[in-house]
């Protein structure tokens, strides 16, 4: 008996510990440890609303517990008929007016925060950094306005500055969400362009996800926001603006890979700032945090992905078996050596969780 209890207790302790540790989630992905202006504002609003709601909940539960204990039928009282009260005007007024006051207390910061987060007027200023974000099945396209920089999947931003985003979609509705920096915003097809801003406090690699059902691989449409210091960001911009898309790689295999890439992949993909934007721009691919948003950046994974993309991300547009596995291996060699910038996810420093 004792042993059983002991086991049981350790199980509970273990369970509680796990719950506690996972309570706030993984750093850089959770909305509960805000690392940016928007997320912080929203976290405060969340806390205000939880406080008000808990206050109400406690009162309800106090009355509830009292009523259920005090007025539950006792033995021998089966035939007792209680007094048939009709109601009480004073009480009705109390529980109408007090909630109205509590809701007004919540409504004021809500409206303030809503307007605050919608304040993207400064995006047209000359020195403002604005990125056009396009959601696609199932990847993200980033075009730095006026900078001639195009990337996908990894969005580099400087810390301590508001980066404005213009969001749209090329196909169905997606939703751009980086929980630890800011709330989400839908990307709509057509002319319905939405705007929001990101302001990261600290350097780090922040997890982003699609939050609007967009097809079979909706859950695999992850991306990263990489916040680096202002100097590093300036460096990255310079590097990216000076990419030579036709630069010859060093190894023979990679050179063959380049040839194969140009013949098979360039009709959709691009390297450098030009290109059609039908498929992800692969500039700086060697520095990507992930392949296709979800695979560790190893050569093996990349070959798998090139040969059988549909098995990894069902329903995506990249054709399967376009090249043989051998050819894919050469293309992988080529792509993985595309390191166009000195500034990498590692530059994001202490908060890098990869």
């Amino acid at each position, binding site marked *: 008996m004792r042993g059983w209890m002991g086991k049981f207790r350790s199980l509970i302790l273990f369970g509680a510990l*796990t719950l506690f540790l996972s309570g706030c*989630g*993984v750093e850089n*992905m*959770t*909305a509960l440890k805000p690392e940016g202006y*928007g997320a912080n504002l*929203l976290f405060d*609003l*969340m806390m205000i*609303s*939880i406080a*008000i709601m*808990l206050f*109400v*909940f406690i009162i*309800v*539960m106090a009355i*509830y517990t009292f009523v259920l204990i005090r*007025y539950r*039928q006792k033995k021998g009282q089966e035939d007792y008929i*209680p*007094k*048939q*009260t009709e*109601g*009480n005007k004073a009480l*009705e007024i109390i*529980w*109408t007016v007090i*909630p109205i006051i509590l809701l007004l207390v*919540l*409504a004021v910061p809500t*409206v303030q*925060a*809503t307007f605050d*987060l*919608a304040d993207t007027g400064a995006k047209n200023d000359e020195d403002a950094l604005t990125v056009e974000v396009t959601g696609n099945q199932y990847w993200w396209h980033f075009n730095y306005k006026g900078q001639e920089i195009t990337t996908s999947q990894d969005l580099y931003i400087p810390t301590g500055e508001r980066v404005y985003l213009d969001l749209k979609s090329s196909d*169905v*509705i997606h*939703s751009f969400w980086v*929980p630890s920096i*800011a*709330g*989400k*915003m*839908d990307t709509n097809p*057509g002319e*319905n362009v*939405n705007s929001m801003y990101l302001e990261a406090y600290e350097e780090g690699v922040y*997890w982003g996800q699609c*939050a609007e*059902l967009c*097809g*079979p*691989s*909706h*859950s695999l449409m992850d991306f990263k926001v990489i916040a680096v210091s202002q100097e590093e960001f300036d460096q990255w911009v310079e590097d990216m603006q000076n990419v030579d898309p036709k630069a010859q790689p060093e190894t023979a295999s990679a050179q063959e890979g380049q040839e194969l890439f140009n013949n098979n992949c360039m009709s959709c993909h691009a390297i450098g700032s030009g290109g059609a934007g039908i498929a992800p721009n692969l500039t700086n691919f060697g520095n990507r945090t992930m392949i296709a948003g*979800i695979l560790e950046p190893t050569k093996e994974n990349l070959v798998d992905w090139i040969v059988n993309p549909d098995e990894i991300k069902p*329903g995506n547009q990249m054709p399967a078996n376009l090249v043989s596995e051998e050819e894919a291996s050469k293309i992988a060699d080529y792509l993985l050596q595309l390191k166009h910038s000195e500034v990498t996810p590692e530059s994001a420093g202490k908060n890098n969780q990869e």
Partner: protein
Amino acid sequence: MSTAVAQNRGLGAVIWDYLTTVDHKKIAHLYLVSGGLFFLIGGLEAMIIRIQLMEPSNNFISAGLYNEMITMHGTTMIFLAAMPIIFALMNAVVPLQIGARDVAFPFLNSLGFWLFLFGGLILNISWFTGAPDAGWTNYAPLSTTSPGHGVDYYVMGLQISGAGTLIGGINFLVTIVNMRAPGMTYMRMPLFTWTVFVTSTLILFAFPALTVGLFLMMFDRMFGSAFFDVALGGNAMIWEHLFWIFGHPEVYILILPAFGAFSEIFSTFSKKRLFGYSAMVFATVLIGFLAFMVWAHHMFTVGLGPIANSIFAVATMAIAVPTGIKIFNWLFTMWGGNIRMNSAMLWSVAFIPTFTIGGMTGVMLAAAAADYQYHDTYFVVAHFHYVIVGGLVFGIFASLHYWWPKMFGQVLNEALGKWTFWLFFIGFHMTFFIQHFLGLIGMPRRYWTYQEGQGLEVGNMISTVGAFLMAIGTLVFIYNIVQTAVKGEKVSGDPWDGRTLEWTIPSPPPHYNFKQTPLVRGLDALWVEKSEGKKGMTPAEPLGDIHMPNNSILPFLMSLGLFIAGFGFIYQVDDKMWLILVFIGMGITLGSMLTRSVKDDLGHHIHKEDLEKGAGE
């Protein structure tokens, strides 16, 4: 026609009787059985979803099938399980509560049921050919571009069953306005009837928005229009607005009758009059009114701008006020009462904290800016399961325990009832409480899988275990129904010491409900008589012939025709030959309508002499 007579005539006659019946009590049985079956199918889909999410990068089902699963789970539970079971309760109880012998339009009542059933069948037949996969919200352009015929099935199925619901709603509206017994003023109506009245009004105004949306979707998918296609000058937002103009009131359509049922149960088992009756009526009407003012809170992240978002945020918060009034009035109904804690009461008592949590997270979600974090995450999934399961499903279980004797003349087993309750209640909170946190730490909803190392493993595991407890609880409930039916112990007309008119007549009630229409002398009509030491109601009329409607197969045929035509519409996209089905189906439907129009059907009379002999009881 009594069941005893029907049994003597064999199974075929019973089936024919149910196919043709226009009796609100039998239509209630039909709604309950078919809604119950769809509830089990929807539950099975939920279990498959939870098994898939049990561990990271799981491959239990494929991504495409998973999207079909979530779409069908949501659609089935809302349209094919919750709605019909609510209609089952409305049919079983409302005419009895207002002292009527049937609903205003018995023929339409039957038509409403068959339309719902055939719509539901169309939707579920899609499992054999590829189910809809764009979510129960079916947002364009994901839905308009979805390959295969899945979304076509969604459109046709919901269009047909939605017509049935609309017909049913209008029917109850007219019934409650016109058919109350003498003396039953509006402010003497039992609260369940009041909530059904408001719900029917919501159906009347909300369902047309869905109908319009579905027609636009149908033309986009089947006949080459471009309402939602941005490339051709359409706008995908129109669908979202139409869907939620319907979709938000729909939530209150579901929850209000549950509120009504809880009000009856709290009052009966506390042996007390409902506290603040007029405030409760006022709150119900106010919730119904506000239901139409808040749809855009489902669309805070769509980009409507801060002004629209703020207005809808404040409007949404306002709904917490009447809901709070209700919670406090229920608590004070029990205050000072003599509380009997049986199964029906357990579900009702458990509803209060559960629904309060759902309401709290509702207010949190209403804070527009904060919703930028909650929206489309498991926080929302947790929230709406707390209100829909914690409010509506708890309400259905409570109502079934409470009204089962009136519907079937038997009391459900108490011990098994409590087992069901505890398994389901604990399972429910295990499944959904943790999901609030899963959402906040970054798990979006409708995710087929999540990656390892995202901190989502433990929460999802707990959630799946909880779902299994809920499933076991449901199975115990089914066993309870079977066992009770097999035992067949009969109960009196008033097993709970009831307060309202349905408890003044035998269980199950005779074909004509009331031998003589009762005279209502106050709120809780039966209780008024009891407190004056009388056993039954004072009749409002002398014993006389009772006029009853005739059975008819036409509602079944009309619905069958639309069912056949539905397949024609879906498949004429591939091959115009399928239009033949449209002509056959519409021919059956229109032919039935013509028959109905030209044939006189004056109903029949149950004669005074037979009533005196006790026939038909």
